[in-house]
């Protein structure tokens, strides 16, 4: 039992931190521009694909460095020549733009890399068990994922709260005109943050690609959950996104690792249903089966009981 709990916690941590890498960029971009970037997970997918292609020639580590850089530059380009122009037409136009961009990137990925799954492998250097506990091995690559996610989280935290550029970003989010009047180029700052946000999504793609498989639907799979996270955490709240990411990562991991379901609950209540009952599927449902929909159930609960999200502020 303890071994299941420990490994479920570690796996939940891996998923949660990975989700945070995506959610942090999305949250930063939302805070500044007031628009949810529907194409954000597509940059995550691009990170995985660029890293796959680079790794074929130069190895995994070169991909880890250059793929996020390429994705970041691409993201900055999209902000400068796409979103900034569309911004004048309002938030609806921005949403439609990012929505269209997501489709465009998915089609482009299929066009250039094909519809199939890519054989993107984790590096041989990390292909060993980090430790063995209760007879179960914990892969070093997953430890690496935790390490890189925490490093980025700490780096981002210090960048935003301790550095001069972080202070300018914080101020530009709430008072862009005042910051511009002090001589800071706010559009350039926004472009930079958009680039860094998409680069973070790219890093997530690079390290998740070998584990979660690299295929053209990977953006759709994770994209919807990332939106759930930013809403649960509270739109625009980085700390909220962090808590929500870990919450969902752990929730899903515990659900998958658990061995309980409706039959156990019914047994506990002393109830029993016939095998040929029309609702048999419902009576025999297990927690691992419903794990994928748990984030959405949590979203519904949060929207009912705390519509602003865990750490979100009520709009004035």
């Amino acid at each position: 039992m303890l071994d299941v709990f420990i490994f479920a916690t570690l796996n939940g941590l891996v998923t949660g931190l990975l989700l945070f890498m995506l959610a942090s960029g999305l949250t930063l971009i939302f805070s500044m521009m007031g628009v949810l970037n529907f194409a954000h997970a597509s940059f995550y997918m691009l990170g995985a694909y660029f890293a796959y292609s680079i790794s074929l020639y130069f190895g995994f580590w070169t991909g880890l460095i250059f793929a996020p850089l390429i994705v970041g530059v691409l993201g900055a380009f999209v902000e400068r020549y796409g979103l900034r122009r569309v911004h004048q037409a309002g938030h609806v136009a921005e949403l439609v733009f990012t929505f269209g961009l997501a489709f465009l990137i998915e089609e482009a990925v299929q066009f250039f890399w094909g519809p199939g799954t890519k054989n993107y492998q984790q590096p041989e250097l990390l292909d060993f068990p980090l430790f063995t506990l209760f007879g179960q091995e914990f892969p070093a690559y997953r430890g690496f994922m935790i390490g890189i996610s925490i490093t980025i989280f700490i780096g981002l935290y210090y960048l935003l709260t301790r550095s001069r550029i972080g202070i300018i970003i914080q101020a530009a989010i709430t008072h862009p005109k005042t910051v511009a009047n002090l001589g800071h180029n706010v559009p350039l700052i926004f472009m930079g943050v958009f680039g860094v946000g998409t680069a973070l999504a790219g890093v997530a793609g690079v390290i998740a690609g070998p584990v979660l498989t690299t295929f053209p639907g990977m953006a759709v799979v994770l994209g919807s959950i990332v939106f759930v996270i930013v809403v649960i955490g509270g739109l625009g709240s980085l700390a909220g996104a962090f808590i929500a990411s870990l919450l969902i990562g752990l929730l899903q991991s515990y659900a998958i690792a658990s061995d309980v379901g409706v039959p156990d609950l019914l047994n506990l209540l002393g109830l029993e249903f016939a095998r040929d009952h029309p609702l048999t599927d419902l009576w025999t449902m297990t927690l691992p089966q419903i794990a994928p929909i748990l984030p959405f159930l949590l979203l519904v609960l949060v929207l009912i009981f705390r519509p602003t999200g865990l750490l979100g502020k009520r709009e004035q």
Partner: protein
Amino acid sequence: MLEVADLHAYYGKSHILQGVSFQVQEGEIVSLLGRNGVGRSTTIKTIMGEVEPHGSIRFKGEEIAGKKSFEIANLGIGYVPENRDIFPTLTVRQNLQLGLKSMRQEGRWNLEEVFSMFPNLAERADVVGGVLSGGEQQMLCMCRTLMGDPDMIMIDEPTEGLAPKIVAQVANLLQEIAKRGVAILLVEQKLNIALKISHRLYVMGHGQVIYEGTPDSLMQADAVRAEWLEV
């Protein structure tokens, strides 16, 4: 230093500035006076690039009409808005650091000097700006602009809502700023402050400059004061 000639500005279809012309020389304190709604704040917002200008605005010989706000600020114009706009979640120190145009900047003002001039701000250096009093916020906002080492600052109603003691402090600070060679364009409704510290004054009415003179000449111009300034 600043030459504004035949400046027009619009809010939608409303013609707010209707050919404003005036000048500010180096180290001078110039006040823009007038009742509410005559276009004083719009004038400085237009100079700062927040409102689209139609006409000529020259600063240190360079045409700045049409430039972006951050470019105008980097040319040496500081702006202290009426609503102060301090960053409430950042500390006093961080608010001041935001005024620096770069970390290597060395100008007429630095953090130590600002703190020695305003011990209140020094004591509260690590307190977030949102909890400061109105007077402290005004001082912080002015000092933040000074940290960028501007050659001219435009200040919109700096004494609005402040206690008489703080108003006197603000007036002293403005004179100290001018002594260091920084020109000041002051938008003020309190006539006594403007008369006390200004070198020259302009009175605005209906989006135009309708009077230009010195504090002494304005004191003699009873008709102008009665028609355009007194309530």
